[in-house]
């Protein structure tokens, strides 16, 4: 009697374990399936985990962040003298450029009036700072402290003082995720400044450059050409600086972005007026 009870208890325990295991596998299968089909439940789940779990992980890593900042400050302090000399030279150079820029700006204004041209087509939605970075292994993403409450929605362009940074892909009330240009799944339509070559570029395998994915009329641009957004894909406003073509390998050109992705602190979310 006791033996049969024990056997029953063991088989019942095993049965529950097998049910639990099957449930976990079924749930995993559904999650993978929904993730592939971009199902709304998964997006909600991602938003919730970003909102609630990420602050906890950030808090846990605070000592490391402090150590990292101290290291940066130490290096900056060590290079202070050399940097000061470089900056003095830069000021001299920029003063000459400033005089030229003021002259060009007034000339530009007069010419725009004559041609009845429209002004800058960008409107600023929000200036935000980088909260956390997730561009360690696979995807190249950063999280910013601007979300739906600031008017930031999905598929908005994100820029900084150097040029295009990326686009928003996931927004919650307070935060948004920005897919950087260098992500292999980020595709943008660009054109050369001379307006001759229109093409699509995506993040290259090295995680630093952008590589051409499609070229209109198979026209190959030259090394040294500057590229800007073409505005044709409706996500990015036209004429935002992207980078410079640095090499051409096997019918593909490589663009080095102007933005230093290792050193971005503040970004601006913009939209077309």
């Amino acid at each position: 009697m006791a033996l049969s009870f024990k056997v029953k208890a063991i088989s019942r325990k095993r049965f529950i374990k097998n049910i639990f295991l099957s449930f976990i596998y079924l749930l995993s299968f559904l999650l993978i399936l929904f993730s592939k089909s971009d199902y709304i439940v998964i997006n909600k789940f991602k938003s919730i985990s970003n909102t609630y779990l990420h602050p906890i992980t950030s808090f846990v890593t605070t000592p490391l962040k402090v150590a990292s900042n101290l290291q940066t400050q130490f290096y900056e302090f060590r290079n202070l003298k050399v940097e000061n000399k470089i900056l003095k030279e830069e000021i001299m150079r920029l003063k000459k450029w400033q005089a030229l820029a003021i002259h060009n700006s007034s000339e530009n204004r007069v010419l725009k009036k004559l041609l009845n041209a429209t002004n800058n087509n960008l409107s600023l939605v929000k200036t935000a700072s980088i909260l956390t970075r997730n561009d360690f292994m696979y995807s190249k993403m950063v999280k910013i402290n601007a979300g739906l409450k600031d008017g930031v929605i999905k598929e908005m362009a994100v820029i900084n003082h150097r040029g295009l940074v990326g686009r928003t892909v996931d927004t919650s009330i307070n935060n948004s995720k920005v897919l950087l240009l260098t992500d292999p799944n980020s595709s943008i339509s660009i054109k050369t400044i001379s307006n001759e070559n229109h093409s699509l570029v995506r993040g290259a395998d090295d995680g630093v450059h952008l590589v051409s994915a499609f070229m209109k009329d198979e026209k190959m641009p030259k090394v040294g050409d500057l590229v800007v957004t073409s505005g044709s894909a409706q996500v990015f406003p036209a004429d935002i600086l992207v980078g410079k073509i640095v090499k051409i390998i096997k019918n593909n050109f490589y663009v080095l972005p102007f933005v230093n992705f290792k050193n971005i602190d503040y970004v601006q979310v913009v939209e077309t007026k």
Partner: protein
Amino acid sequence: MLSKLLSSQIIIYHCILFFSFSLSVNYFVDLEIVNYLAYVCFHLTLIYLFFYFFHFSHIFVTFLYAIFFDIFLVDSISPHLITFLAFVVLFYFTKKYLLNLSSSNVSYIIFILTLIMFISEALIANLQFNYPINFENFLWIFITFIIIFYPTLVVFSKIDKL
């Protein structure tokens, strides 16, 4: 059963898991090596926990970590979840043979399993989401793994004796 689950060693291992997970998903641009260390340490701790402190609840914990790794590092659920669950199945159905092995053989198996996990995660991410296999990243992971493998096991064996 509950006392087994809440033993001091297991709590320490779960703290290590959570701490290394937190470090892995927050990228430190100037201290990149910390990210590699944490990523390797997480995988190693998880496999060690399964081998020496297996409990059914660990499957659920692994499932959760896999999902969050995928969300934070890949932004789509798949590579870590598939890899971790494949490991769970493999372990669950072979544990009666694995647990009879000597400690040195177990450490070889942990070594091989960890390497297989890194490779399969990268392969799945590449096949499903077009993320290229970055050899520089891989090299760093392998170097870090080879350097910390033995010291980590030594530390873990010290924790086991607590």
